[in-house]
């Protein structure tokens, strides 16, 4: 007889949350950063430093607006320079946030719950930094809205065959969806903060932000569906954004830019640098705010492994770009290969290879992945490496292309540096404010990591079985069984989302077709007026945008939010619904409702307390 009882223990994986926490301690620990702890000297000092750096950016921008892009180092042939390098770099960093949130939610990876919030915040601030540069680069930033298709007195429309127009749609969709995703994720936590704080005006602010959220099971049901749909839409959106950025280069025929691997290779590079930024922020934050219980070694190690994996996809890109460049035998492409290695920027190309390929290989060792100091240094190294990569792609390809007579050199000016370094200050200053003002870790999602409350589900089932139909249940976090128990099975969010997406996509395609073939047909490079391959990008982006917004607004409208006042809020104990207690409500409008009988029935459920709610 085989002895199977002796099971060797599984691998010792670090837990996602340190032991000894319950719903209450999680709530207290995270909300205390925002509400209770005094502003520390370290925070003030750090914020001030960032704020000073931010002033440098404002100085640069002011000068830029007064004098024009001549204050930059851009010239002909290098028309793109730092502005586009920084744009691509920042938007790449903005990828990890939504990626962590959305993909890991879909993959049911519960370890995401403690890092998604600040990763999403990071995304937003990075996208804000990124979005500035193309607008400055327009030369006349105050008319940036010309990029959008709107009926105007100039009688012109955008050219939807240009990747630069796709970029406008991709980046603004990404910014909007990321913002909505982030905000929707915070609504239940705003409700928690609203109940915890003592100060009236703070209560007012968080109360408004919470839109009257009251943790009802019906609300949770719609909320969960909307959040999941948003995640499902955001995942392809993340990939599409850097894909469209790569099209800015690959659609043209400049040697070194025109290569088909650019989309996945840019996306991998973006995730690579995005996770590096996550670690650069997470390592100090968990240390200074003592969040080691929630951001554990497991999070840090997993992020390091994602960097290793995406780093190898980037390496694959370098390798096959170089190999096929030789194999294909194009003279100009061959020159790019030569020029990168032996031209005036060769040092930076080699530095990029060292930073991106060579040094991160130490991540193969577990000891390095678990050492916070070295991991921080490697993440910094990757951030530098990825910036250099964009610099090499933009500058080295442009400075020597087809004609010897149009060769040139690029020298960034002081203003170039001021604006670039300044965005770093802007980004970190925003992060400092975020850490102080908003719950930096998702409180309600951390609650779901703890064992669930079965008592309330049972009580709800009994209430439903007793014949009550106009009932609701309240819990500090979503419990699927709970809304099933009160007889709420179909929430209607998904059809709204589908309808919105279809309308958005169809509308976008028709709009592009009408603009570029009927209203404003312009022959550009001999391409057909009706260029369906080119129209797919904006169609895709608008499908996601309208689908996502429909899901969120549909959820809010069906939940009857915003509704800042609700009679239930008059019950003092009800504040605990946002913390660690569960409630069941039977509405007076129920057919079976009778003040005395219902009270007696509720007594049989053994509650802590029963309250009558005056309307």
């Amino acid at each position, binding site marked *: 007889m085989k002895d*199977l009882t002796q*099971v060797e223990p*599984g691998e010792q994986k670090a837990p996602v949350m340190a032991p000894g926490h319950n719903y209450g301690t999680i709530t207290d620990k995270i909300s205390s950063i925002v509400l209770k702890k005094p502003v520390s000297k370290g925070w003030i000092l750090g914020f001030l430093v960032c704020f000073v750096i931010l002033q440098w950016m404002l100085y640069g921008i002011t000068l830029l607006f007064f004098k024009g892009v001549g204050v930059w180092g851009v010239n002909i042939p290098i028309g793109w320079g730092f502005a586009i390098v920084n744009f691509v770099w920042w938007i790449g960093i903005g990828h990890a946030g939504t990626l962590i949130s959305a993909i890991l939610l879909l993959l049911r990876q519960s370890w995401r719950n403690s890092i998604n919030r600040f990763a999403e915040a990071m995304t937003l601030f990075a996208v804000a930094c990124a979005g500035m540069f193309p607008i400055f680069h327009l030369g006349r930033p105050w008319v940036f809205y010309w990029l959008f298709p709107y009926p105007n007195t100039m009688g012109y429309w955008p050219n939807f*065959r240009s990747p630069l127009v796709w970029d406008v749609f991709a980046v603004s969709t990404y910014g909007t969806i990321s913002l909505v995703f982030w905000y929707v994720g915070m609504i239940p936590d705003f409700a928690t903060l609203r109940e915890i704080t003592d100060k009236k005006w703070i209560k007012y602010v968080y109360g408004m932000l919470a839109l009257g959220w009251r943790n009802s099971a019906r609300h949770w049901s719609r909320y969960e569906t909307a959040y999941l749909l948003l995640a499902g839409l955001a995942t392809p959106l993340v990939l599409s954004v850097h894909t469209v950025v790569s099209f800015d280069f690959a659609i043209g025929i400049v040697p070194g830019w025109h290569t088909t691997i650019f*989309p996945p290779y840019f996306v991998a590079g973006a995730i690579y640098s995005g996770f590096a930024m996550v670690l650069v922020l997470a390592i100090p934050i968990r240390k200074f705010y003592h969040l080691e219980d929630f951001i554990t070694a497991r999070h840090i190690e997993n992020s390091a492994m994602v960097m290793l994996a995406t780093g190898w996809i980037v390496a694959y890109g370098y*390798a096959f770009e170089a190999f*096929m460049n030789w*194999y294909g*035998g194009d003279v100009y492409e061959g020159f790019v290969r030569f020029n990168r290695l032996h031209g005036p920027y060769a040092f930076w190309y080699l530095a990029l290879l060292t930073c991106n390929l060579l040094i991160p290989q130490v991540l193969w060792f577990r000891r390095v992945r678990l050492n916070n100091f070295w991991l921080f240094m490697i993440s910094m190294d990757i951030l530098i490496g990825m910036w250099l990569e964009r610099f090499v792609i933009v500058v080295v390809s442009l400075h020597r292309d087809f004609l010897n007579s149009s060769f040139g050199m690029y020298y960034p000016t002081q203003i170039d540096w001021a604006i670039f370094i300044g965005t770093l200050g802007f980004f970190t200053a925003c992060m400092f404010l975020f850490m102080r003002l908003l719950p930096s870790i998702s409180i309600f999602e951390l609650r779901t990591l703890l064992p669930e409350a079965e008592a309330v589900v049972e009580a709800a089932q009994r209430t439903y079985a007793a014949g009550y139909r106009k009932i609701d249940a309240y819990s500090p976090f979503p419990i699927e069984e709970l809304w099933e128990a009160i007889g709420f099975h179909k929430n209607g969010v998904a059809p709204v989302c589908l309808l919105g997406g279809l309308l958005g996509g169809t509308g976008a395609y028709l709009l592009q077709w009408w603009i570029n073939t009927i209203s404003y047909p312009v022959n550009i490079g001999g391409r057909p007026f009706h260029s369906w391959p*080119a129209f797919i990008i904006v169609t895709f982006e608008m499908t996601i945008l309208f689908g996502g917004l429909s899901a969120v607004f549909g959820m809010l409208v069906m939940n009857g939010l915003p509704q800042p006042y609700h009679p239930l809020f008059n019950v003092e104990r009800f504040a605990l619904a946002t913390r660690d207690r569960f409630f069941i409500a039977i509405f007076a409008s129920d057919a079976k409702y009778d003040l005395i009988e219902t009270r007696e029935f509720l007594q049989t459920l053994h509650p802590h307390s029963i309250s009558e709610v005056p309307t």
Partner: protein
Amino acid sequence: MTPANHLNLEAPMGVRPIERRALTIGVVVGLASLILAFTEPDKFFHAYLIAFMAWLGISLGCMVFLMIYHLTGGVWGTVVRRPLEAGVRTIWFMAVLFIPIAAGMKHIYFWLNPANVASNKHLVDLTHSYLTQSGFIFRAVIYFVIWIGLSWLLLSLSATQDKPPVRNLSPRFRVISGPGLILYAFTVTFAVIDWVMSLSAPWISTIYGFIFIVGQCLAAISFIVIVETILIKYEPFSKVLKPKEIHDHGKLMLTFIMLWAYFSFSQLLITWAGNLPSEITWFTRRLYHGWEYVGLFLVLFHFAVPFALLLSRPLKRNPRRLVKVAIWLIIARYEDLFWSVEGNFRQSFFVTLPDILLPIALGGLWVWMYFRNLRQAPLLPLYAHHTQTLLESVHE
């Protein structure tokens, strides 16, 4: 006592007839098509290359999923680890099936004939340095040595896990799988350059390797869904395979359909927009003279229709309905390879007898090999601690 003792872990008798029939079909159709090798060698070898790439894709795709599973874990992989390993065990057999390609090279690769390349100086250089007959065969040997080596490492470690006591070999599997995936990605790309991309030398597309990689994964996961639909009727799969895992496999199919569409569309858009004579000709060959219908067919049936179907949650949880999509996708994978490879040889679209016979012949042999392999080991890696956890949850 553990619940595992009650389970019958041998491959069910129900798969024996499949094995026999597959062998019969493989041998009979194979012999029939062999006649064509002598009467119409060109058409025979072109079709052979496509069929070979199609079935090799499933073997290698199984290895990719196995390594991904070892790196990430998850019940979706624990249940189908043995079906995946049976696919990995066919890789050596694909090396045998490669011999006819090496033997019939001159019928497939135009660059072997100096007269064909003389007009292009770069091609002359290339056929002296990289695209040479000996280089081609030498590199093929290297690819297969690496793939067989990887499969041997994975399978032998798995075999040691079939003996008690229960132990956790995941760290050792991970040491193989991490570098293994990188090795796979690089070698398969070089292989695809040699075997397929060189048909239109010196045309290049740097995303070409990725398109094949996701294609192989899509074919493999579709095949696994077919296998699990057969096995779910019998123990142990009737006990351990839950709608949740089938749902996960359906999601993987959906993911790889989307990735395939993403990569293929990116390649089209970048090439179309650049419109360079050296690149766009690859597409113009494949978008006129009847080929455009094959292309349209791919857009609709390799992407749009299966994509829309797989969005449905009930479909992904129902193996009977999911398997129809899976069978369809295997056929669509073949269409994609056909469009990609045969587009080099034929000005206009038509189908010949070898195009139909050879995928069936190779498929018969491959499926026979696969189910034979499935019998070599218990259907669940019993002494892996993941399996123990799984069985405990089943027992509850």
